[in-house]
Each structure stands twice: as C-alpha cells, then as structure tokens.
C-alpha cells in the first residue's frame, strides 16, 4: 500500500486526488485537533495502559462480551457451550468497562467542543445515498456483522491490532491491518462508484 500511496503522491503533489467519487470527504467537518496531537496522545495512553493497568487498548471484544451476555439471557446453556464463550466468558471485565468509558469520553469531548451531532444520517451519506434510514440501517448492520466476524477471526480490530499490536511489532497485527485497509479501500471505492 505504501508503494501505491507514493506512486499516487508523485503524480499529484500537494493537491487533490485522482479519483472522483462525486463527493469529497474533506468538504465536511474534520477533527478539532491535529491528528498528530491525537495520535501522540493515544501513544502516551498506551504507555499508561501497558505499565499501570497491564492491559492494551482494544475495543472489539466488548461487542462479543455484550453478545455473550445477551446470549446467556436468551439461551444460557447453548451460549455457555460455545467454544468462544468457554474461552472468554462474557463478564464485565477491564476491556468492557474501558469501551463503556470510551463512549463517555466521546460524549465529553463532543459536548465540551460543541460538536454533539444528534443525527441519524451524516450529510455525506445523504449526499451520496439519499435520506433513506432503512438503507443506512441495512448497510450499517451488514457492515457490523462482517466487521465483528472478521475481528474475532483475526483476534482484534483497528484498536487491538491497528494500534496496540502494531506498536509492539506483532507480525500478525501488521498483516491484519494491511488486509483491513486493502479490503476497506476497495469496498469503499466500489460503494462510491456504483451507480
């Protein structure tokens, strides 16, 4: 991917990109802080979780825990018989509390920064796909299913592999993240070029 980026960059120094998707993501609001400041903050946060908590930053197992908790209510015996939940019993553990707090942190940041969105459809989605909520819901749900299945198969997501694994030079994390972005880029470009 690096080669692809550099080849593309060489052709279009300092300017817009070659492909036209009809919409430009940079026409909509970006981040309030510099990405380098935010990235450095997450890097320092990883020092703290490694040393003080003995944990890594990760998010995807939260959803598996929630699924297991729901499963235990609806079909206790069956859920507890599944290999994944025998290895990872669904409990309100450190990672579970961490992700709940991530929601809170997102709220505090948006609230203090005057960026509470309170919206069901993002303007960029509406400009590309229209204002049908069922369409967004269906595509979002399908995306979530694929994403969670992939994250469990790879044993991590853009946080667990993409930040925590890669910063430890974990070979499998680099492989996973490269595959995530290859497939993500191809699918997104397909989604935004289809009629």
């Amino acid at each position, binding site marked *: 991917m690096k080669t692809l980026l550099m080849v593309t960059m060489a052709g279009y120094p300092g300017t817009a990109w070659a492909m036209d998707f009809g919409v430009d993501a*940079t026409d*909509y609001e970006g981040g309030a802080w510099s*990405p380098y400041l935010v990235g450095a903050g997450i890097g320092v946060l990883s020092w703290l979780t490694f040393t003080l908590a003995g944990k890594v930053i990760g998010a995807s197992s939260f959803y598996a825990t929630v*699924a297991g908790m*729901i499963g235990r209510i609806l079909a206790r015996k069956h859920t507890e018989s599944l290999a*994944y939940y025998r290895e990872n019993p669904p409990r309100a553990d450190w990672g579970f509390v961490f992700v709940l707090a991530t929601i809170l*942190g997102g709220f505090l940041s948006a609230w203090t920064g005057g960026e509470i969105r309170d919206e069901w459809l993002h303007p960029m989605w509406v400009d590309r796909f229209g204002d049908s909520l069922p369409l967004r819901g269906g595509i979002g749900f399908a995306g979530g*299913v694929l994403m969670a299945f992939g994250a469990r198969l790879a*044993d991590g997501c853009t946080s667990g592999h993409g930040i925590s694994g890669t910063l430890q030079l974990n070979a499998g994390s680099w492989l996973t993240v490269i595959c*995530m972005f290859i497939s993500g880029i191809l699918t997104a470009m397909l989604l935004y070029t289809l009629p």
Partner: protein
Amino acid sequence: MIDPGKLVAETEAPPRGGVRGMAFVGAILFGAAFGFLLQKGGVGKYNVLIGQLLLQDFTVVKIILTAILVGMAGVFPLHYFAKCNLHLTPTRPAAQSIGGLLFGAGFALIAYCPGTGAAALGQGSWDVLFGIGGLIAGSYLYAEMSGWLNETVLKWGDKGKLLLSDFLPVPRWVFVSGFLLLLLFVLFLLDRFTDR
C-alpha cells in the same frame, strides 16, 4: 538499549475477570481519555473515516501511525527496563488475512470501527447503532462457529508469537530504531503530500 536477552518474562494476558478498585478506575479514566482523543481527532465522524478509505482524507492513517510511533518509542524501552510486559498475540496468517479482509469490507459499509464507533455513539451519531447491532450479531455468529474455526482456519499456518524484528538478524533495538525512522519518514510524506 533494547537487548532481547534482558527482556522481562513475556507473560500471557491475565485471565478475564471482574474489574474492581484501582483497575476499575483505570479502565474508566483510560477509556474516557481514548474516546475523548478519538472524538477530538474527528475519527468519530462518518466523512473522516470513509474519506480515509476513499483516499481523500488521511486523518485516520496520520493518527494511527503517530500513535504507533509514540507508543513504540515508549513501550519497548519500558519493556526493557522491566516496567511492563509485552502483550503479543499469535500470528495466524490464514485467519488474520481472511479476518482482516472481512473486517475491511465491513469497515467500508458501516464506516465506524469498534473503537471509533463508541466515540461516535458518544457524540450522538445515531447511525452507528445499526453498526453496533451488527457487531453484536456478528460476534455471536462467530461464537456459534468458533468450535469449528478453532480446529480449521485458526490452525492453518499458525506461527505462534512472532515479531517483525524476528525476520531480520539484527538486535531488536536496531530494528525498532530503524522502524521508528521509517514511520517518521512516512508521516513526513503524508503531511507534505496530503491536504487533510
């Protein structure tokens, strides 16, 4: 500085259990800081995330690479001075390439990922709720198939714990230093040649 011969024992992650006392406070503080940073970085926003996959907006890659750079520059020395353990997970080429490809396709459809989705929920981007429903359903679907997957895909080509530095016959600190310089160079290029 970093000598593989002087590493602290690389322990397994402790078993998942309930979280109490200081661990609970830590999970709250660190999780809130993570969500705060993600939202401030703009990666709770649909256009920033999908813009990365369309190669229009490079915020996501800039944040990830800077986090890796700073994280790596701290964690390896901390590990060397026995202040923390590494938390390595097995390298399984088949499971991780298939898993990564499935994840990426899902990523493009929902635009939020598991961590940024939590921040998106906090800022009131309610469309993430559909994705969260999918994440919960997909996790259970995986659990349903986990017995079979454990015996097949997860075993294919399993390399166990493997670091990128294991591929080159140089001391780990040399590899880490070179890698940090490479990350810095890529970030410099990104900053120079992208608008956002």
